[in-house]
């Protein structure tokens, strides 16, 4: 049984068919990349999986559960975490607080105990900090821990966003263009971290990515889209040399 199955996924915005009949499966433990020219519907697929958009037709099944109509906030609890193309961090908060918000789904205390800060809340705060610090260690964010997001360079913000997603301890991580805006060294680091995330933490990764080097280095399988339609799925080399993919990128 695959971890994620998208079945004839379609979404229409008025007359615009952003995604049409796209079916794919993602196996547990793999790194699955989605590539395609601008406007192909890559980010839209992410927004369908994370339930920011409503699916018009088709269904998404995650860990044998149909999540096509699950409310947006419930997605995180099921074990799906995501990052955003242009980063959607909590800008006026410190890095640590952003990560602690990532821990929110592990919350077991209620409002009353929190406003009186009962011992259970303190214990939970300590546990959250353990989770956050482990992630900070993994991604080398120590020097930024107490800085406000608004003051950080873009490359670091990208990493903080991945860190925040990891604090959810997800089964599936959706990375929307993780290397955009990163310099070549940072992109190299990213591919190592991807490997760590995937192999050491055992998290399945789906990423939308334009950097073909990163895609071929990091991913097990690649799906190519163009104009909302599926072109092909396969190994990175096979997809790069597929005639439809070449046509979509280069024209006839």
């Amino acid at each position, binding site marked *: 049984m695959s971890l994620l199955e998208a079945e004839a996924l379609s979404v229409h915005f008025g007359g615009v068919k952003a995604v049409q009949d796209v079916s794919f499966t993602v196996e547990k433990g793999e790194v699955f990349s989605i590539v395609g020219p601008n406007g192909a519907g890559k980010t839209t697929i992410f*927004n369908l999986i*994370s339930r*920011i958009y409503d699916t018009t037709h088709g269904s998404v099944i995650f860990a044998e559960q149909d999540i096509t109509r699950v409310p*947006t*906030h*419930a*997605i*995180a*609890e099921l074990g799906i*975490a*995501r990052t*955003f*193309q*242009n*980063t*959607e*961090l*909590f*800008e*006026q*908060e410190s890095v*640590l*607080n952003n990560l*602690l*918000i*990532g*821990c*929110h*789904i592990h*919350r077991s*205390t209620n*409002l009353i105990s*929190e*406003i*009186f*800060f009962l011992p259970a*809340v*303190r214990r*939970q*705060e*300590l546990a959250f*900090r*353990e989770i956050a*610090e482990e992630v900070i260690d993994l991604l080398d964010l120590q020097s930024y821990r107490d800085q406000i997001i*608004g*003051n950080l360079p*873009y490359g670091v913000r990208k990493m903080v966003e991945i860190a*925040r997603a990891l604090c*959810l301890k997800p089964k599936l991580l959706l990375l929307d263009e993780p290397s955009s*805006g990163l310099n070549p060294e940072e992109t190299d680091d990213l591919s190592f971290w991807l490997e760590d995330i995937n192999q050491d933490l055992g998290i399945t990764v789906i990423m939308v990515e334009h950097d073909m080097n990163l895609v071929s280095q990091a991913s097990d399988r690649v799906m190519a889209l163009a104009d909302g339609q599926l072109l092909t799925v396969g190994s990175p080399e096979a997809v790069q040399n597929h005639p439809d993919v070449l046509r979509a990128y280069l024209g006839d």
Partner: protein
Amino acid sequence: MRFVRKTKYQQDINLIQHSGHVLWYGLLLLAVFSAPLWLDRFLLGEFTYVFIYAIAGLGLMVLVGYTGLVSLGHAAFLAIGAYVHAYLLNQGLPFPVTMLIASLFSAFVGAMIAIPALRMTGIYLAVATLAFAVIVEQVLVHWSSVTGGFRGMAVPRAELGGVDFSSPVVFYFLSLTLLLGSMILVMNLLRSPAGRAMTAVRDSETSAESMGIHIARTKTLAFALSAGFTGLAGALFAHRLTYLAPDAFTIITSIQLLLMVVVGGLGSLHGVIYGAIFIGLLPQGIAILRDTVPPAIAQIPGLEPAIFGLILILFLIYEPLGIYGRWRKVRLFFEEFPLYRKATHKRQKSFLRTERLQ
């Protein structure tokens, strides 16, 4: 400059983070608790007023400063708190109970308001809350069997066990204690998941939702807490007024409350106190000014609201972080002297928000 060496997570979690806090806040507490000894009765009353404003400001700060929802109708919650408190006192209930019920009822109304308000943000929400305040004002005027209508309602003295809580000194301590209590509750909220969820909603709803935060629940909670604190302030405010009439809770009051949190500094609890001092003492300042300027200027009708409005606009343009933001800059200047860089507080423009999900 102070460098705190952190060796335990507890240090981040504790409310008192280093010895400097103990010293300065200790001195401040000593000053406010000994105030009746060295302050004359008039100023003591003014400080009590500042404390009451600060409690309402705490409530509004939770909503505006931490959850990012603007309310132009908080005078309504102040009114609800005041009227419920006075009504129940008139029915003969003991005053701590009436105060609690006033606060809880106000919180309940706040939660009810949140339901339609959830669909709105920004200016639309401000207009909707303004409309709510107008409705409450009309209810106060027309439901005369309960509220006394235009004639108003007398507020009985708050007495418990032979102690008159309405007498200036006791009332000063009552307000101070309630302010400190409310402050601790809000500080606890802000260092726990519920408070962080609010700031998350403020900064990015899309991403808060993807982190598993229930947006509707968080906003409703913020509204309820905010209304609850403001209702508590209303109950105290009733004793200061001693006689309740609908014209004490108009749009001007709502604007003053909003002015308080904006001028004080959005998103900081220090800001609440600075804002409350500012708003509480500004009318006195204007009164003194009136005596010094020619009568032709001093007698202009609507001078006070105009000055309030002008100050709000000047702050929004020149110091969006309020008095607290200004204070931080001054402090940094002295801490880093002579190495202060002027550009430290320049806001970085972000250019990459074009494709934001809405």
